[in-house]
């Protein structure tokens, strides 16, 4: 009795999606292959030096790769009967059942995946300039630092403790201010609550997009923004962690809302209750314990982050750590690092204990 009404329309969309995925994968593979070809043929620049990875990246023919990739992707989709399902089909979960059974060595997409992984690994090795020999032979310089860390000096202990208190409160205020806003935003950000009407769907999209963007910007960058806004000091740090926490908590909260049992919502809706009442009775009681747990976890993360937010001027213990690293005062650095490690360790245990109690 299953009678898909718009199978033609959805079939078309599906093909376009598969083609787009294939295109992207083939283009990436193509570019990596060209990169490696240029690197291993020992191309030299005008000065006679071997080209660096960055210079080679400049030489890759990206437009050729894009065009060639498109031709190959279309070709694959046309020849699918002969050469088997494409990687895009695998990733969109639409490989025909009989092909799924085959071991990867007997399918073209299996070999494509294998080659793709190899290419990625070698390209990555060159681009990030891994040098095993240097790593294994040049330990000497770093030994100074390790020695300093092992002999912490007491001279910054007092100042460090005071700034540690600031660090913990900085994290606390950022978390506390983030809770109510994330709570309110998590409802329009939950898919299951926003299917009903067009405005709800738009609210969902807007909220999700904005929050993803805010979350994608690191707290250190937010700190730089707020320092130019409210000046150097812990307040800028609070604002930076606050903005990032709102976005992170909104995501965690809304995912929790998406996984609730819809039964109580149905039951409350059926009594003739209004939307707010349905949320208050059908949703909120189910999500309060996990929300508490996530919030404490977030405070834990914020304490970690607030120790380094001072590096850029956002207050907390990082503020006095940075100049000592620059001056090479490794003994004092050692003291501060130990203080931070102890705090993070204690927070870790505390948050785990509290969350154990709640869930």
């Amino acid at each position, binding site marked *: 009795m*299953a009678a898909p009404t718009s199978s033609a329309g959805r079939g078309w969309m599906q093909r376009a999606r598969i083609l787009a995925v294939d295109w992207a994968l083939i283009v990436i593979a193509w570019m990596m292959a060209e990169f490696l070809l240029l690197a291993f043929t020992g191309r030299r620049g005008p000065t006679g030096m071997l080209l660096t990875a960055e210079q080679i990246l400049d030489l890759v023919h990206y437009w050729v790769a894009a065009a060639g990739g498109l031709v190959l992707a279309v070709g694959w989709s046309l020849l699918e009967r002969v050469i088997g399902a494409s990687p895009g089909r695998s990733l969109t979960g639409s490989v025909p059942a009989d092909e799924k059974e085959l071991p990867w060595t007997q399918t073209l997409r299996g070999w494509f995946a294998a080659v793709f992984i190899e290419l990625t690994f070698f390209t990555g090795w060159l681009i990030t300039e891994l040098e095993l020999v240097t790593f294994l032979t040049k330990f000497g310089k770093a030994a100074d630092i390790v020695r300093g860390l092992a002999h912490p000096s007491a001279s910054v202990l007092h100042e460090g403790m005071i700034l540690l208190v600031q660090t913990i409160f900085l994290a606390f205020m950022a978390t506390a201010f983030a809770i109510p806003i994330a709570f309110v935003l998590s409802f329009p950000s939950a898919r299951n609550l926003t299917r009903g009407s067009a405005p709800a769907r738009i609210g969902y999209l807007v909220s999700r997009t904005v929050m993803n963007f805010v979350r994608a910007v690191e707290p250190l960058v937010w700190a730089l923004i707020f320092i130019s806004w409210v000046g150097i000091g812990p307040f800028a740090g609070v604002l930076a962690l606050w903005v990032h926490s709102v976005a992170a908590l909104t995501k965690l909260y809304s995912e929790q809302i998406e996984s609730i049992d819809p*039964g*109580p919502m*149905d*039951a409350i*809706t*059926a009594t*003739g*209750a209004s939307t707010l*009442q349905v949320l208050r009775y059908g949703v909120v009681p189910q999500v309060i314990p996990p929300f508490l747990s996530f919030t404490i976890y977030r405070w834990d993360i914020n304490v970690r982050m607030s120790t380094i937010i001072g590096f850029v001027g956002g207050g907390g213990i990082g503020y006095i750590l940075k100049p000592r690293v620059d001056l090479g005062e490794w003994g004092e650095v050692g003291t501060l690092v130990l203080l931070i490690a102890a705090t993070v360790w204690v927070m870790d245990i505390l948050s785990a204990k509290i969350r154990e109690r709640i869930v």
Partner: protein
Amino acid sequence: MAARSNDAAVRIEGLGMVYPGGVRALAGIDLEVREGEFLAVLGLSGSGKSTLLRCINRLIKPTEGRVFIFGREATALRGAELRALRRQVAMIFQQFNLVKRHTVLANVLSGALGRSALLPSLALTFPAEEQQRALGCLDRVGLGDRAASRADALSGGQQQRVAIARALMQEPQLILADEPVASLDPALRHSVMRHIEVLNRDEGLTVLCSLHDIDLVARYATRLVALRDGRLVWDGTPAEFDRTTFKEIYGEEAEPASNTGL
């Protein structure tokens, strides 16, 4: 409201439902339920019983056809009017669907949400007379002494009785029950069904109740309809129901369980 006595409690015309994924769950349902009837809805799993009941109080929006409740077209209502209509229709679910972390009393009180002031209700507070009424509803299902317990501390049968008290609290004219006893121990089924029967017989409430167990149908229903693949395939009284009609509904392979006496 004067016209009500002429109107059926529920009238369904050409009802059809296709879920967003493309699954057709109901097709061309025509049905009229008179006031005071206890209508049992039978059918295999997946035949569309839940979908039918949920279309009536508009927990889902049917894609075809119309539903009238006491003469008002439910399928045409939106917003506040739809909520006002829902207040007349209480629903009881297979999984009870109580708010587990709330007390039993708070769960019963939630039946009054449709007529409560918004702000106090968001703070979980209700007027004294509603609280009295809720206690009364709990007494009627025999759970007056459990008002302060957390809902999830009760047994399944007790939770379903709380759900019935919540329905009572709503002061409805129509009750939709979706397999209300299917997840209960067989020994407890009658204790729950009897409460629904009382509402039907003594209060004159119309009941639409999907059931799996033919014994229960014979014992409680005044009328019986059956769904198969989303279509209405049988309509009659439990007394007319026999082995042949059973096979009509459930298919040639099916056998009535030995204790159904068919």
